[in-house]
């Protein structure tokens, strides 16, 4: 199979993809830095949560950077082409994990059980999965674009359901609205949903490069996802002032 440009296939959308990925990289990098700073200044019971947000930011910065590089190149290297949907898959998974972590911290915080909010083994395993997902996408020698697309199409809905489940659990909690965590999980869920759409779009594009509508839809989803990230980063900045 001959690989052709995967995103920006439709005329005129390449610039949108590029702007979207650049914004994603910049916002995510900022998010990672602020989250890391908050994690350092926060009590132990919160470090796990902010650690996950740091991971979300770090992975987002990588995805955004690679994506921007991919769309900037007229003839993208095959490796980068295959990398984008897989990286986005990893990113959505990290977003879902952060939703889970917010719920776990909410359940365990403010009680004697707050020490259980930090599960080194669990966290290590999950980070390992994310790294694995990213790693699978790296060498196109091991995974063909078709396999990569199939994996993304199969896993993205599961990841959205996973994150959505914990969001629902959050909503079912009493008096959870109006807190910082409430605002964060709402915006992270939006980011997860929109970038899942982007992931699916890039996966479809991987095997059907002339799908103009899908290409445009993916670019729109990317912009909407980065818009949600803006709200997350603003909240991070506000919170960082008080820690």
């Amino acid at each position, binding site marked *: 199979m001959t690989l052709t440009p995967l995103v920006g296939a439709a005329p005129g959308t390449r610039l949108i993809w590029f702007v979207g990925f650049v914004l994603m990289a910049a916002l995510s990098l900022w998010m990672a830095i602020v989250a890391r700073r908050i994690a350092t200044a926060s009590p132990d019971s919160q470090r796990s949560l902010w650690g996950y947000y740091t991971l979300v930011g770090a992975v987002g910065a990588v995805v955004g950077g690679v994506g921007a590089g991919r769309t900037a190149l007229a003839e993208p290297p095959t490796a980068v082409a295959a990398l984008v949907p897989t990286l986005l898959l990893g990113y959505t998974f990290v977003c879902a994990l952060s939703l889970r972590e917010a719920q776990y911290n909410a359940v365990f915080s403010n009680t004697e059980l707050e020490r259980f909010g930090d599960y080194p083994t669990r966290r290590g395993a999950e980070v390992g999965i994310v790294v694995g997902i990213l790693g699978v996408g790296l060498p196109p020698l091991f995974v063909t674009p078709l396999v990569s697309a199939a994996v993304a199409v199969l896993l993205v809905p599961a990841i959205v359901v996973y994150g959505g489940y914990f969001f629902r659990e959050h909503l079912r909690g009493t*008096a959870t609205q*109006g*807190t910082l965590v409430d*605002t964060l999980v709402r915006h992270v869920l939006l980011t997860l949903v929109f970038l899942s759409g982007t992931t699916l779009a890039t996966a479809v594009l991987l095997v059907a490069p002339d799908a103009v509508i899908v290409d445009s839809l993916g670019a729109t989803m990317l912009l909407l996802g980065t818009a949600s990230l803006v709200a997350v980063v603003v909240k991070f900045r506000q919170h960082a002032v008080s820690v």
Partner: protein
Amino acid sequence: MSGPHRTTVGQIARTVATDIDTTVENLPTVVEALDHADRTVRLTAMWALVVIPEFRPEARDGVVAQADSYAAVEAQFVVDVLSDNDDPDEETTAGDGGSVGSATAVAPTADETGSAATADPSDGSSTTDGPPTFGEDGPGPGENGPGPSENGPNTAEQADDDPRRRLTPEAREVVQTVVEEMWRAPERTPSLLRLLAHDRRHVRLTAMWAVALVAEHHPTNVDHLAARARQHGSREVSFLIDILDYYHDVSQTEATQLDATIAPPEQQLNRTLWGPYITYPAVEDRVVGEQSNTFTPNSTTVTAVNSVELVGLSHHERVYVVAGTVDDEYTKFNLHTYVPEGRYAIKEFQRGFQPAIDGWTAVDGLDHVVSVHAHGRTPHPWVATDYLPRPLWEVGQLPPRAAVETTVELCDAVATMHQGGTAHGAVSPWSVGVAQTTSAYVPRFTRVGMAANLGGPQALRIDERFAPPEALSEEYGSVGRLSDVYGLGVTLYRLLTGDAPPYPRDLDGRFVPVDVPDPSATVPELPAAIDPIVQTATATEKPWRYESATRLAQQLRGLLKDR
């Protein structure tokens, strides 16, 4: 009205402290309390039942028989304690036909009780010789308690005349502390522990009960309490340890380690463990002449005559009521003076005062913020404000709807403060004054921004039970707007329950974050829907706290709408 368990604790304790005969007459009621749903009531009933036979030995068998029919562990403790007659120090008259032991045995032992005795305001002919007022089943705060006639004709006078008929002053003071001033019990814990070695058994039993109740309010301190109690070898200590272990699972290992590391009791007991407002400042207030009680402000707005009364005190702040003129009108006003001491340098204090007063004056036109009439920085910072007769603290418990509505008003005031760029920094029932009109309480914030700028809440008259975690430990971040949300949450808790959250420190003074109890757990009549709102407002971690006072107000308004 307070929670029924508080009322019952007060009723039992007051009756035992003032009139043993009445307690004996109401013995079935006391015994029934062993089956009460609330543990503090059961513990109080237990205490009453083991103390009664100390004065009325003839009642012992009846008490044992009745208590034995109850399954509660407190009932078994009653049986065990009353079956334990091997006490070499026993001073009661078991078997002597109802008279009480020798005069020497019943004489107060002030030398044994240290501060507990010397600080006893109820000794002799003091005001507490009558039935002490407590809880909410008596009149409101600041009012006189019920007269002796409520407990029968002249019972108090009879009791005074016959020391064999009532508890010793030491024991009565413990009762008074527990019933009326539980918030001061932790600071008196050393005295309570020392009373475990008192030579009179009923005093030891009373101390045992009091320490058990302190443990109820400060569960994080149970191991420390147990370890320190073990240093006072008596049978009552064994019973106390059993009680603590039964309910709180006392860590034997830690207690053993503590036993090895804790300083001798004489070195521990002189410490003030809680409540910075207990210590009288060592530095003289030069704003108000303490000898002459005069205040001569360097102000064109405010003048004062020689009528100054100190009404509030803390490490760095004193509050006076002053008679004088404000804008040429003769009136009363409050004067706050801020006197730095210790590690706070005067220049540093004065530097922090300016932004604080700027923030306060920026919002003092609001309905719920006390107006600043004048202020100055020399010789110490001072602020003259509207007169407020008392803090919200003294209002105690309000009906649920009134409590929520009052808190909504406070939320709105705080939200407006925040919009104006000012955070109060130490919202609590102590920092809200109450101006009572003919129809309602009007809460008004005072000390706006002072805590955040003058050494933190610990420097001012801040009750640590109402202080947000970030005010007590840097680990939880800085004091700011979210701290005000926390303060509103604990103020709501206070208004709903008339109670205060547990102390956030262990016996060694280390900060220990505590959860504010559910209001409905303290006062079962309250709707459970209020619990998560209080919990969220008082979340230890800021990310799980309401992001703004407006959010809290929205939740509370929703609650009012639903009712």
